[in-house]
């Protein structure tokens, strides 16, 4: 007996199974992310510590304190917040200008399928 699937049925099956698969993959990624957070011993060290400073220390070099040491208590978080707010405002302001404002019509403008 031959097993035949009509193309419309196949398309319907495909349209249902792909979003399910995507959701399943997202769930796995989130679960792995959570597990790696929960069980990692050295949580989220930067590569400056895990690579740069580790190798430098092994070869007798150690990082010195920065000239202006802002890594004291919550001061660094505060400065990151200020820097993020100022930088974010500048980026957002110019981004809006770049992408939200209407582009002027260009000479010789034509349709192009590439890109």
């Amino acid at each position, binding site marked *: 007996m031959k097993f035949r699937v009509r193309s419309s049925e196949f398309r319907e099956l495909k349209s249902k199974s792909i979003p399910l698969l995507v959701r399943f993959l997202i769930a796995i990624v*989130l679960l*792995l*992310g*959570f597990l*790696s*957070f929960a069980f*990692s011993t*050295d*949580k*989220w*060290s*930067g*590569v*400056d*510590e*895990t*690579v*740069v*400073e*580790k*190798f*430098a220390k092994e*070869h*007798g*070099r*150690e*990082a*010195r*304190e*920065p*000239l*202006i040491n*802002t*890594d004291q208590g919550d001061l*660094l978080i505060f*400065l*990151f917040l200020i*820097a*993020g707010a100022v*930088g*974010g405002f*500048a*980026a957002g302001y*110019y*981004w809006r*200008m*770049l*992408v*939200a404002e209407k*582009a*002027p019509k*260009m*000479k*010789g*403008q*034509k*349709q*192009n399928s*590439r*890109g």
Partner: protein
Amino acid sequence: MQPNSIFKIQHSKRLLLTLLLAVYCLLFTASNVHAMHLSEGILPLGWAAFWSVIAAPFVAWGLWQMKKIAAVDISFKPLVGLMAAVVFIISCMPIPVPSAGTCSHPCGTGISGILVGPVISILITAAALLMQALFLAHGGLSTWGADIVSMGVMGSFTGFLTFKALRSMKTSMAVAGFMAGLFADWATYFTTSVELASGIRGDLPFMPLFWKILIAFIPTQLPLGLLEGAMTAGMVTLLYKKRPDLLVKMRVIRPEEAL
């Protein structure tokens, strides 16, 4: 139901999902984070001076070109302002990489190299790195030159040349942007490995230590490079769709390539 309202519902669902993902990331993946850049004192003075000498002419070239372009086109400055803010934020933004259990940051020099050109991108990077070294305990003043060479010079030129080469082979905007971001990120960390290995090796041979450092970067930088590629592709594609005139003006594409 009107098609417009269906679109609005789908849009708000997507927005809600994005917000939930962002909250998840903040709650479960963010913690005390640090990023890359060579810190103060990591390189011996001789090597720090050597990389500063290498970086200096590129920064001077960037200043000269910036002055030259801005003199004839004042609208160039907003784009440089945007790119400076983007590079500053991106290069001090630590991103947790669950597969490695560590944090690192993308560079942003791929996109700035494509949009404002590699030379002005170096200038932007130098300014961003200086601010970070002075006020955010991120990178150092003595290692400023080395960080400019790895992130600014190598990142910007690799991103720019990859993009140009792929576009000349008729590759799509998204693919060229992705590869440019990916290679700009990897080139930065490749150069950092060279700088670190040459600076700390003492009497030991260079190559074994270089490979050791480069391999140690891979678990974090491999996925992060992919993220930077996706980010670069997204930004280039968005500009291509929304403001192709700007890409023409910046000589990223030719007028006949505009949509």
